[in-house]
């Protein structure tokens, strides 16, 4: 579905990504893991079009889109969440999720301006889709609360809702469970698996909680210092020596 070939990204002299190639298969849950500063978030930013690889190439569904900026990337069906929640804090939860449907809404300024006919029908149709997402994420009770006033865990959930409302083909999650307690983590893990199984959404996520990663992902890619050091099933990764070394430093040396 998505293929990154030989991606390099540098900030000044810092090489954030140094020739990483990875692919995402349709329908899978791919976990990208690695120590801090390994280039995981940079990778997500490259896939979502925030940064462009130099050199390197990116293909989505067989078509090259290496230098596409973020908003047309979103239009291709790639949605994302951010490591530090990026919600529209002044807007209600409902509006936040409604914005997720921005790309699906077609009626122009004038028909909406008059708010009848097509404009109204469309607004209602999208409102229904949004209510389904809200229902599904169990956030009915906070629909009308400004997003900025919610506790962190709920904000992350709303952000996930905004991404899901776009009905993406590929969903990128940058540490969706960071800073959550066990119960909240289990909730999010369940939503991720549901989105994958019921909606058929392909998912790539960055996560530090190894237990969760091993449980929910089909495949794991490990980055370290901007390079891919391993790739495989959770089982393979668990026993990969390079990975153990990267995480524990001097593993095996007494």
């Amino acid at each position, binding site marked *: 579905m998505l293929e990154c070939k030989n991606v390099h990204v540098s900030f000044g002299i810092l090489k954030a990504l140094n020739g990483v190639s990875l692919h995402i298969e349709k329908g899978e849950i791919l976990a990208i893991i690695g120590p801090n500063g390994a280039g995981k978030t940079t990778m997500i930013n490259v896939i*979502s079009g*925030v940064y462009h690889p130099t050199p390197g190439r990116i293909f989505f569904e067989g078509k090259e889109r290496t230098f596409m*900026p*973020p*908003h*047309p990337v*979103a*239009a291709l069906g790639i*949605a*994302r969440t*951010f490591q530090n929640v*990026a*919600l*529209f*804090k*002044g*807007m209600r939860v409902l*509006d936040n999720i*409604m*914005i*997720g449907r*921005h*790309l699906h*809404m077609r*009626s122009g*300024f004038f028909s*909406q*301006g008059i*708010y009848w006919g097509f404009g109204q029908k469309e607004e209602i149709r999208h409102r229904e889709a949004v209510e389904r997402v809200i229902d599904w994420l169990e956030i009915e009770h906070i629909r009308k609360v400004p997003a*900025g006033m919610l506790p962190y865990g709920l904000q992350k959930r709303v952000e996930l809702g*905004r991404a899901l409302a*776009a009905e993406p083909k590929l969903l990128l999650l940058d540490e969706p469970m960071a800073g959550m307690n066990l119960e909240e983590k289990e909730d999010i893990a369940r939503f991720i698996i549901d989105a994958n199984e019921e909606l058929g959404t392909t998912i790539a996520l960055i996560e530090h909680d190894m237990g969760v990663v091993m449980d929910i992902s089909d495949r794991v890619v490990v980055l370290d210092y901007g390079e891919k050091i391993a790739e495989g099933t959770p089982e393979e990764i668990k026993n990969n020596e390079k990975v153990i070394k990267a995480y524990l430093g001097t593993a095996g040396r007494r």
Partner: protein
Amino acid sequence: MAIDWLFVSEVTISGLLVGLMYSLVALGFVLIYKASGVFNFAQGPMTLFAAFALVSLLALVPLGLSLIGVLVIMVVLAYTIERVILRPLVARPPLVLFMATIGLGFFLEGLAQAIWGTQPRGLDIGITDTPFTLAGVLISRMDLFGAGISGVLLFGLVWFFQRTRTGRALRAVSDDHEAALSVGIPLRRAWTITWAIAGIVALAAGILWGARLGVSFSLTLIALKALPVLIIGGFDSVPGAIIGGLIVGTSENLAEVFLGPSVGGGIKDFFPYLLALVFLWARPYGLFGREIIERV
């Protein structure tokens, strides 16, 4: 002192009407501030520019056509501003953008001077300034007309921002650029639309205040009156701009009547600033502004 209630209501009503016109000017600032986090120093000169352009077009074609003409000019101006000024400064600190708007302001003022000279012009939009009486209260036609236009524009804009897809997208952009891009909203188009709307607001303000006071370079000073309105209402709130405008309009009139005589008059010009100062002490984010809690 016996209070003449008829007179007081007259003063209050005139204050409310003028207040709506202040709101309109303030709204131009709020829009840009919300979209790009910048206090747009050029809003005053934009008002001036629009008013001068209208006056000179009026000499050639009828009112309707001139309005459309200036509208087109303001939209083209917005597009150019995005292209030439905002785009190269993307992701720079707000202070840089603020400096850019100061430059833009001086440029527009200079351009207006080069094209139209420094002579004040009259702007006749066919509204007489003779007052009429309603239940014994004198009301200025011009004020009522101005308030009416401002009210319609304010209502339309609030509605646009709350209810339409484009409005929602613009609000999203003002909240978080990165997130807006990630849901597929093109930043540049959003900025162009915002500046175009600010240009249209500037045009409306230019017409209303130009018709009241004449079109001259002192029109840019009207923009200064927006400052207390913004401080009282909150820099990032559309309802705040409306309420703030009404408070400033009414309070300056009432202050002139009740406090003016004891200090020898002339209080009207600075009273709003005093009031704004009090607000800065008590509620630095204004009545409706978003409170930003900064973590140190």
